[in-house]
């Protein structure tokens, strides 16, 4: 029964704890005082009496410990107390706490952000059933890589492949949906029957999925709509199946509604938006001439990629044998690639580089934290020694330092997670256009655990390491200054090495960022051949049923342009398609009239109307622009850029005859003008030349290009009104400045550049902080030496110079080491650079100089403090 009493006693003692604590202190004091009095009576001197009483009493600290252990549940209480002590100790060193936790926050925040992005985009499987087995099949033929398939090939592949099923294709289109008198453009797609099951969209929520055989008829088309459109337009009406919807001026019947949440992550060449609202059924034809379709498929269970590839190699050979005219010189290659890999191919190098960069930041962060903790614990050496002398066990001290490290880790980790949230928000805001699956980017549970673990590991490892050293250095209060000097020098060397490492590590992202910056500047200054500033654009869509031939389409556009010119606020109107640097470009094979098909090369083509060249300041070197007369009389003319002209006709291109191939169809056009080189596909691509055709040669939909003083809203409504008068029943969309297309095309480079600059800046800041901490510690250790020197006549300036020189020396060593590392590492980002060599001297030198300047600034404050040391105080301090 005594255990009941004991427990009751313990519970009561929890309450009376404080009373007991002070009671114990008082008891001890009383005891020692009594002994002291006895000693005094025995004749000892006052100091000796007290001293003997203390010794006789024994070790105070551990006595208090074991006594306390008797009256309370020890471990939890001790830990709580250590926690409070730890927090207090951290508060008493605010700069250290601030820098250390900021460093941890930075390193962890950055790593978690980049890791989350990389994991969501590159590693996490796509949200489709059996996503790892979904593949794309790319077609390389006639000298063009990834040319896309022809519909006839698709049909044959379906019939012939045993290892891949669900062979299908999809192409993004616009759907102009009329509702309540208004027309809205929604993203839509034309897809074969297998696509929706492939993407896991079946079973559908209402109705049935597409069946092209019955849904794509001459009498009318049946479509499947998305959940979002269903709710928006039909209010979630369950009786929507069978109802009609007006799309593109035609009545179509709804046969199905998809489940919520389907996201289409396919390559940009499919033109398919992430969120598709209307699905049109597609019937495949037999043509082998027109290409551009993306082939999707899924490996059958148990089939490996290499097996499928082998099969497709055989099928390719069979194709060539069966259709020799379609594949001149037997040039056909089919490649099977997992969809995720194909989707992320372009962005993989940039993301990998970012992952590398953030690794550096993290590494530097850890080194910095180690440095700061080392400096701090060295400064606390005397305090710890006194505690040991008073009887605190080594275990106790270790435990306390351990808990301090944990508190710091928690602080840093929490701040880091906050930083990571902000980082992901920033990624969303920057919205790099080339980054696929952006909507799927989220912070991962795994990443959070990783971050917390990393934070704990760093601070505990580096917090305990110095502590363990102290435990072993004996506990006599008479730690001689000699011994402390020796261990201090060792610590200084180690710290110095750490700083050199930090600086070296920080140079590498700095150089990378500098190279990206130069690339970006080069890109923005690249000669694209036209000037897009101050021009607005808008896409005009028309029905090809309503305007069946080129002539009627031209009449529509001509009238539209004339009407628009009269609108107040609109100065000049012209049109073209596609717009340069817009995502989808038109490519054609071209050559001399006498060249046969095999000798043709690739160029980008733009359909333009007269006036476009002048408005966009595309310079005509020779010849003339198109005229309205050219189009009215359908003259077969063409304008080429100087690259085509100098390649085909160095003697002069005007009047020469150009062959243009669209699919199987050959046209011959007369060259009437030569412009500067125009880059239409991408700024980086300086090799693909460009040509312009007048409207009637390729009578497609046009984008308006307008010089106007109206703001975009007024401009947009002016166009809509004019278009409505002409009655197309289609919406006007993509109203945006022409320069947007230009900046979008380099947005991925800009994104990488900003991020690298951010990381480099962070790394540099961390290195500066590390340098500062080291120098501050060095000064505190060498206070006496500095005092002596100043007493012996060294001037303030001399002392400052000495300290600064030390700091700069460390920085220079680090910079040299870092440059060597940079030379190695920057080769890996070569593919992302533009007109800058990875070994670019200016960048390397610039980075080194920047680091040295920062080091000088970081060293200046410790130097200033050193200069203000009073020699008298210094000499007396120990």
């Amino acid at each position: 029964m005594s255990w009941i009493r004991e427990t009751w006693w313990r519970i009561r003692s929890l309450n009376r704890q404080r009373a007991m604590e002070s009671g114990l202190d008082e008891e001890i004091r009383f005891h020692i005082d009594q002994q002291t009095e006895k000693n005094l009576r025995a004749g000892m001197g006052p100091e000796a009496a007290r001293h003997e009483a203390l010794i006789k009493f024994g070790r105070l600290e551990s006595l208090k410990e074991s006594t306390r252990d008797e009256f309370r549940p020890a471990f939890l209480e001790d830990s709580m107390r250590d926690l409070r002590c730890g927090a207090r100790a951290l508060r008493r060193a605010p700069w250290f706490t601030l820098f250390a936790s900021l460093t941890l926050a930075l390193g962890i925040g950055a790593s978690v952000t980049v890791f989350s992005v990389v994991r969501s985009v590159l590693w996490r499987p796509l949200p489709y059933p059996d996503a790892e087995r979904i593949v794309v099949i790319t077609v390389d033929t006639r000298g063009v890589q990834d040319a896309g398939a022809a519909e006839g090939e698709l049909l044959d592949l379906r019939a012939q492949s045993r290892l891949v099923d669900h062979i299908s294709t999809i192409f993004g289109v616009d759907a102009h949906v009329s509702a309540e008198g208004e027309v809205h453009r929604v993203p839509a797609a034309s897809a074969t029957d297998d696509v929706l099951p492939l993407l896991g969209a079946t079973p559908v929520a209402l109705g049935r999925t597409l069946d092209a055989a019955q849904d794509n008829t001459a009498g009318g088309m049946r479509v499947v709509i998305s959940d979002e459109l269903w709710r928006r337009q039909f209010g979630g009406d369950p009786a929507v199946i069978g109802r009609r919807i007006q799309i593109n001026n035609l009545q179509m019947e709804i046969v199905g509604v998809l489940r919520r949440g389907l996201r289409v992550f396919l390559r940009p060449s499919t033109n398919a938006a992430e969120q598709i609202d209307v699905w049109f059924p597609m019937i495949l034809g037999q043509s082998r001439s027109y290409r551009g379709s993306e082939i999707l498929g899924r490996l059958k269970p148990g089939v490996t990629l290499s097996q499928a590839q082998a099969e497709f190699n055989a099928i390719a050979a069979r194709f060539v044998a069966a259709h020799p005219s379609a594949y001149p010189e037997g040039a056909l290659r089919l490649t099977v690639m997992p969809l995720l890999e194909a989707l992320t191919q372009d962005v993989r190098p940039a993301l990998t580089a970012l992952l590398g960069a953030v690794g550096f930041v993290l590494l530097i962060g850890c080194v910095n934290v180690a440095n700061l903790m080392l400096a701090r614990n060295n400064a606390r050496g005397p305090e710890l020694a006194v505690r040991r002398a008073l009887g605190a066990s080594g275990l106790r001290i270790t435990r306390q330092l351990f808990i301090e490290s944990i508190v710091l880790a928690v602080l840093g980790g929490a701040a880091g997670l906050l930083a990571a949230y902000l980082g992901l928000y920033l990624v969303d805001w920057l919205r790099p256009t080339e980054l696929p699956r952006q909507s799927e980017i989220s912070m991962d549970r795994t990443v959070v655990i990783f971050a917390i673990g990393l934070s704990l590991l760093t601070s505990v490892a580096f917090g305990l390491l110095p502590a363990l050293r102290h435990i072993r250095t004996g506990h006599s209060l008479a730690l001689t200054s000699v011994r402390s000097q020796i261990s201090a020098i060792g610590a200084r060397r180690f710290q110095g090495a750490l700083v050199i490492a930090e600086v070296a590590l920080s140079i590498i992202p700095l150089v990378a960022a500098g190279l990206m910056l130069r690339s970006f500047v080069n890109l923005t200054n690249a000669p694209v051949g036209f000037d897009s500033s101050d021009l607005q654009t808008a896409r005009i869509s028309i029905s090809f049923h309503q305007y069946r031939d080129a002539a009627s389409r031209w009449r529509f556009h001509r009238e539209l342009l004339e009407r628009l010119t009269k609108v107040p606020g609109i100065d000049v109107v012209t049109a073209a398609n596609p717009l340069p640097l817009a995502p989808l470009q038109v490519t054609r094979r071209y050559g001399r009239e006498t060249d046969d098909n095999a000798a043709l090369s690739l160029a980008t083509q733009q359909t333009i109307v007269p006036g476009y060249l002048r408005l966009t300041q595309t310079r005509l070197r020779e010849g003339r622009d198109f005229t309205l007369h050219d189009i009215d009389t359908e003259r077969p003319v063409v304008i080429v850029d100087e690259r085509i002209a100098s390649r085909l006709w160095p003697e002069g291109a005007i009047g020469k005859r150009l062959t243009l191939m669209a699919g199987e169809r050959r046209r011959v056009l007369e060259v009437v003008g030569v412009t500067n080189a125009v880059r239409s596909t991408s700024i980086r691509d300086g090799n693909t030349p460009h040509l312009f055709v007048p409207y009637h040669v390729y009578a497609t939909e046009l984008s308006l290009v307008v010089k106007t003083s109206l703001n975009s809203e007024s401009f947009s409504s002016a166009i809509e009104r004019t278009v409505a008068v002409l009655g197309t029943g289609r919406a006007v969309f993509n109203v945006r400045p022409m320069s947007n297309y230009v900046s979008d095309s380099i947005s991925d480079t800009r994104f990488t550049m900003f991020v690298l600059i951010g990381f480099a800046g962070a790394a540099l800041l961390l290195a500066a902080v590390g340098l500062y901490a080291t120098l501050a510690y060095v000064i505190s250790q060498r206070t006496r030496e500095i005092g002596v020197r100043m007493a012996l006549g060294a001037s303030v300036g001399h002392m400052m110079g000495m300290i600064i020189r030390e700091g700069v020396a460390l920085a220079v060593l680090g910079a040299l080491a870092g440059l060597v590392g940079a030379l190695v590492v920057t080769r890996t980002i070569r593919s992302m650079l533009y007109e800058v060599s990875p070994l670019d001297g200016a960048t390397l030198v610039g980075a080194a100089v920047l680091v040295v300047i920062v080091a000088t600034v970081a060293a200046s404050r410790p130097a200033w403090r050193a200069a203000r040391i009073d020699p008298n105080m210094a000499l007396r301090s120990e």
Partner: protein
Amino acid sequence: MAKEKGDLLQGTLDMLVLKALQLEPMHGWGITERIEQWSESVLQLGQGTLYPALYRLERQALIRSEWKVTENNRRARYYSLTREGRRHFSDELSQWRRMSRAINLVLEATAE
């Protein structure tokens, strides 16, 4: 009933403290003085052994404590035996006597 060695020593110390308190209530310092005197300066309690023992004994309700004022007008905590403590002490004492007699017999025995 075999005890650990540590327990044996602890138990012995407890016994000494209880004995010291048998005559009259005493504070911690007084207990050490008394034991030191009686043992002719052989046993010097200190070393953080006394106070943990006192708290342990109090937890086991063998002694109780209260704050009083000494002759010199200083505050001190005085310990005294409870009835349970007295009973416990006499039990321990008789056991100790039996044990030490047995040990002595063995040590003094000559070979036969």
